[in-house]
């Protein structure tokens, strides 16, 4: 049987293997060596590799990002971690003005091999300042790679590729993926950055998604399958570089595109993907492409509102109904069974996380 571990174990294992094999790698971030170890992704590492290489840090996100960059110029390979992407807004000067441009603005003299792991919060009333999804901000900036894993396999493979990469990589982890299981080889391996994955083959419609929204997209595609509709689901895996070819190939086959992005609609990455597809595969499109995103408002805290803020499989199905001219069915009719509250990834979550 194939070995299965969780997404967070995959992150931990990859980090562990790099610390073991590459003396230039070190890990830094608020809470990295604490008892919770960034939701299990860094537990035990300090004990194994010591204080110097597995570091907590002052609550100084901007300065510490600069420190990471400076060390990277000297050949270190820092893995920096933020427990919420929201905290990173403090360090955009370092990321955008420096990390993204260093290699370019000094004419290729020194690159910045830096991985920044950013966790996206959702649920349990995390509210406006602890559950933003800011992939657009990074993806717009030349000089950054933006990685967006969904499966435990890719969590390990893409993190490995990111650490190996000689350039700054923004590695976005959705908190609701951490406990998901999947096959992950134990030995080190890499998944390619810039190559999307066709997770489900299908001929009727192409869904492009990534990170946590893959979970909802796959749920929707299951329901559709039960109803004889074959959706091709593409897991982006990285937003930048974007694997245009895989997307365009698929749309050429299906003639229909739906982009599902867990982010605010206006200038969500869905906009870029649709624009590219329209530019390069206009005549294959049988209908205008659709998108499922967050509404353009901050995340409300109360679960009564948050439950309606986050799109779920049913919202994807609604959009597919619209594009494929299917009759509008209820969640039950689509066979979606929802048990328990919607503001936690699973029932094991019973408090703040």
């Amino acid at each position, binding site marked *: 049987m194939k070995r299965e571990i969780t997404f967070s174990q995959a992150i931990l294992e990859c980090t562990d293997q790099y610390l073991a094999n590459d003396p230039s790698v070190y890990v830094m971030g*608020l*809470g990295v060596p*604490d*008892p*919770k170890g960034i939701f299990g992704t860094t537990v035990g590492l300090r004990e194994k590799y010591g204080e110097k290489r597995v*570091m*907590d*840090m*002052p*609550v*100084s*996100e*901007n*300065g510490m990002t600069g420190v990471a960059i400076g060390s990277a110029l000297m050949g270190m390979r820092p893995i920096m971690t933020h427990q919420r992407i*929201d*905290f990173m*807004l*403090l360090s955009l000067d370092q990321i955008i003005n420096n990390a993204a441009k260093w290699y370019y603005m000094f004419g290729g003299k020194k690159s910045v091999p830096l991985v920044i792991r950013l966790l996206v919060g959702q649920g*349990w*009333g*995390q*509210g*406006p*300042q*602890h559950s933003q999804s800011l992939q657009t901000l990074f993806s717009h900036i030349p000089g950054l790679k933006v990685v967006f894993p969904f499966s435990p396999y890719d969590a390990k493979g893409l993190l490995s590729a990111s650490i190996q990469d000689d350039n700054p990589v923004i590695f976005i982890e959705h908190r609701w993926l951490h406990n998901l299981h999947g096959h992950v080889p134990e030995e080190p391996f890499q998944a390619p950055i810039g190559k999307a994955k066709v997770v489900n083959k299908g001929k009727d419609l192409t869904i492009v998604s990534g990170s946590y929204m893959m979970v909802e997209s796959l749920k929707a595609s299951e329901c559709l399958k039960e109803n004889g509709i074959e959706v091709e689901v593409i897991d982006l895996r990285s937003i930048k570089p974007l694997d245009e070819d895989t997307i365009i190939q698929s749309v050429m086959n299906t003639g229909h595109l739906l982009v599902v992005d867990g982010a605010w609609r206006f200038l969500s990455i869905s906009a870029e993907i649709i624009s590219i597809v329209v530019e390069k595969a206009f005549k294959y499109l049988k209908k205008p492409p659709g998108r499922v995103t967050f*509404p*353009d*408002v*901050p995340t*409300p*805290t*109360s*679960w*009564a*509102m948050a*439950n*309606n*803020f986050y799109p779920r499989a049913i919202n994807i199905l609604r959009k597919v109904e619209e594009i494929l001219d299917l009759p509008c069915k209820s969640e039950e009719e689509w066979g979606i069974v929802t048990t328990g*509250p919607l*503001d936690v990834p699973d029932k094991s979550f*019973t*408090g*703040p996380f």
Partner: protein
Amino acid sequence: MLNPDLAKAMYLDMLQIRLVEEGIADLYPEQEMRCPVHLCIGQEAIPVGVCSTLKKEDIVMGNHRSHGHYLAKGGDLRSMMAEIYGKANGCSKGKGGSMHLIDLSVNFYGTTPIVASIVPIAVGTAFATYLKDETRVTIIFLGRAATEEGVFAESLNFAALKKLPIVFVSEDNFFSVYTPLSERQPRERENTEIAKAFGIPSDKGNGNDIREVYNLSEKAVRHAREGKGPYFLEFETYRWREHCGPYYDTDLPYRSEEEFKEWKKKCPIENFEKLLLKENVLDKKQLVEMRESIQKKFEDAVAFAKSSPFPHPDEIFSDLFKEAN
């Protein structure tokens, strides 16, 4: 000794914060308060000592751990509980939760959880009072970890430059989540010295002794109100419960049961109670009555919160922009 009425009032305020937060901790496992809560149990002397030196028109802002700040400034308990329960009549209409408390009727201007992010905003409210020639004082409560953010230094600099009427109150409970000071600040670092190097007078005190908090704060607020400029205060104290959530966490290796017990002995409420009994400011009966009345008030607030309606889903779209009127 303090004036007995003031002493009583401060005792009552501390007790209210304690009992309300213990109540929250008890009810939290019901899973109806579905938002993060950061309890200040053990630290109550700071909000109460500081806010007892303020006038109603003075402005207070806080951070993620601000139930105490809100209540000490006189914030409405029902609105707070309704907010924590995610209800439409919460102080932020359910949009903010425990980390976004506000009660403008008492000039409690808001709290936010991004570390230090609200500090310059408080400097800004002080700046507005300066521009308008008002004599209101602004108080900003921050955790000591917030002094590690660069914006803290920027805030000191501008407040000192314009001699703004603001008092910075740093609550030093040693930890930032599970991280001890030693992993974050050099041993030699003294925030009071940093403040002084900006030209800001400062004091460090025992945050578990409400008389000391009150006295230092009284001096600082007077300084600010008299137009002499900002003041920086730092108080040592200790958080009893976990960083976020209702439970104790001395099972975790980041701090020891002994350390916790040492600090429990320094309980700001218990020790003040003993003193007030000894000095006959209060008697046992009054204590019981106080507890009961707070208990009742809390139960009422919880009942209010529980029975209040959730926001309508369409409320997601309201309050994005203020429309011209």
